């Protein structure tokens, strides 16, 4: 069997994205042993939304069997996905959900992802305290889902007060600056909810201010942060959005192309087209194992996990 699968990534501004593509390419190679030839063609560059729509159109022109996309917008692809479907192409979105009924989402639940770490924070603070949040890009769907997630959790805890929420655009240095400003104006905060690479920045400011012992804050999954976490024994916890999600999506795609059917149809999420993958969690309890698993990797390497071919097959009839 031969399948041609197109991978589209519309932003190369983070190492997580490049790792995502690499893992997907490795997953494709793994199918060879099963006697399935999976050829991947990837488009990965900084583009705007129309530019990524063009990615999809290019795949249609090439006549791929499936498209796996990490979309720059949740809703903008509805018309072009409809065209892909007309052309008989399977479309799977990963990392960010899409509204199109013609596509499937295979990835983590961003809201659930935020809720996990928010729960950890709330529990660590024993249900009370002042908390600040440092978010990604305002208006970005993944960011807004995450915001909704932590707000829901903190809302359930009477004693937790969100004193300020700021945006640092998923930029580590901006996260560090934002934290610095927040520490100056709210010297008595107890917890910080911060996402992704910004967590490393925020922690740096916390440590600079010698408050590492007084503040609990969420963390992230890059190796260089995990090292710092281990070395300094930080009071942190991190939900994992593994870059392997695209690899998982690829495995799902191949099985679907083979004509297999899911045991449970993908109907989760706000658009009823999602199949959620498990969200690993890193806390002091399993930090050692995590650190061991990323040993020897470069600093930008993110702790990852993905569905193996066997795991994936288990989801199918």
């Amino acid at each position, binding site marked *: 069997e031969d399948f041609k699968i197109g991978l589209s990534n519309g932003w*190369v*501004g*983070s*190492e997580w994205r*490049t790792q995502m593509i690499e893992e997907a390419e490795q997953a494709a190679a793994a199918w060879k042993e099963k006697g399935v030839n999976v050829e991947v063609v990837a488009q*990965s*560059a*900084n583009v705007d939304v129309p530019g990524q729509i063009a990615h999809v159109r290019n795949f249609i022109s090439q006549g791929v069997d499936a498209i796996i996309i990490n979309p720059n917008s949740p809703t903008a692809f509805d018309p072009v996905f409809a065209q892909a479907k007309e052309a008989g192409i399977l479309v799977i979105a990963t990392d960010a959900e899409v509204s199109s009924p013609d596509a499937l989402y295979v990835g983590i639940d961003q809201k659930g992802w935020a809720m996990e770490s928010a729960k950890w924070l709330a529990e660590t603070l024993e249900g009370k305290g002042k908390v600040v949040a440092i*978010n990604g890009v*305002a*208006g970005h769907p993944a960011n807004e889902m995450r915001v909704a997630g932590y707000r829901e959790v903190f809302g359930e805890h009477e004693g937790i007060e969100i*004193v*300020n*929420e*700021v*945006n640092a*655009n998923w*930029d*580590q*240095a*901006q996260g*560090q*600056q*934002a934290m*610095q*400003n*927040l520490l*100056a*104006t*709210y*010297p008595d905060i107890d917890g910080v909810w911060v996402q992704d*690479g910004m967590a*490393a*920045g925020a922690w*740096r400011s916390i440590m*600079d201010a010698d408050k590492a012992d007084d503040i609990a804050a969420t963390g992230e999954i*890059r190796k*260089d942060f995990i090292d*710092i976490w281990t070395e300094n024994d930080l009071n942190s916890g991190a939900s994992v959005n593994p870059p392997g999600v695209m690899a998982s999506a690829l495995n799902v795609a191949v099985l679907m192309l083979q004509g297999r059917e899911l045991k449970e149809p993908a109907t989760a999420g706000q658009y009823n087209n999602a199949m959620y993958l498990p969200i690993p969690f890193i806390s002091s309890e399993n930090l050692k194992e995590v650190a061991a698993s990323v040993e020897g990797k*470069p*600093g*930008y390497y993110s702790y990852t996990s993905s569905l193996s071919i066997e795991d994936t097959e288990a989801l199918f009839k």
Partner: protein
Amino acid sequence: MNRVLEIAKNPLLIALVLIAALLFLGNTLSPGFASGGQILRLLIVAALLGIVAAGQNLVILGGREGIDLSVGGVVSLSAIVAGNVMNGMDGGIPLAILACVATGALFGLFNGLGVTLLRIPPLVMTLGMLGVLQGLLVVIRQGIPSGRAAPALSEFVTRPFLLGLPGIIWLWIGVGLLMAFILHRTVFGQRIYAIGSNEQAAFMAGVPVRHIRIALFMLSGVFAAIAGLCLLGYSGSSFANVGEQYMLPSIIAVVFGGTPLSGGKGGYTGTMAGAVLLVVLQSILTTINIDESGRQMVFGATLLVLMLFYGRGRGLRA
């Protein structure tokens, strides 16, 4: 009266007054904002921006619509190169500095050659170069061992170094003195102003116009690269697009410092104040608890209002 007006129009003075006013406002809105430690930390952030803006300032002074949009890319690239070279070890710092300076100078040279030999407008050349740099970042990130800053570098940037001030602030003061010396006490500086205000006349007076313009772009690259190195020290590890946030702010700092984008006029002292002003403004906005949409609207509007104080274009009717 006239003299008073003249002094009141001094961009440096305007910036200093505005900074004081903003600090006061910030402290009123959120007590603790203007504490000594916080001001020092703001200065660290301003120093990073200010060092990038030094190069930007030179390129803008050189006229012919000089502008360098590629600084952000160079900052990112240099942070990654530096992280890669020093790899978390103090011993690697000298080599990392060399590597950064070389990287910055190289891309500055490309910009300079495009602008002078091919006469591509700087905005276009450096915008194109930014695209190339962003692509290059993706390429070279494949398989680099690590991006950790050396401990000494981080200490230098974030910890008190001399008289309670972190090393990076001393570095920035040094950059300020160097810039003042270059611009006001060297023939090179006079030539920068000369090509900025009348390139043709400068050429006829034997000024090596191209060489100087190339040198300006190279200096811009070098300053951006040094900032990238310091940014690595600030954030501890290098990561993609770390410098993206410096592109337009570095230009605004220059404008707030009283150097018009048309070149040939202005200096660096104002730019330093402009950088501080911008950083203080941004940090006040972070600490005020409003929606991001509100913050952006206030930020945009405030920038516009502040610009009214600075070098508005002359009226058409004299």
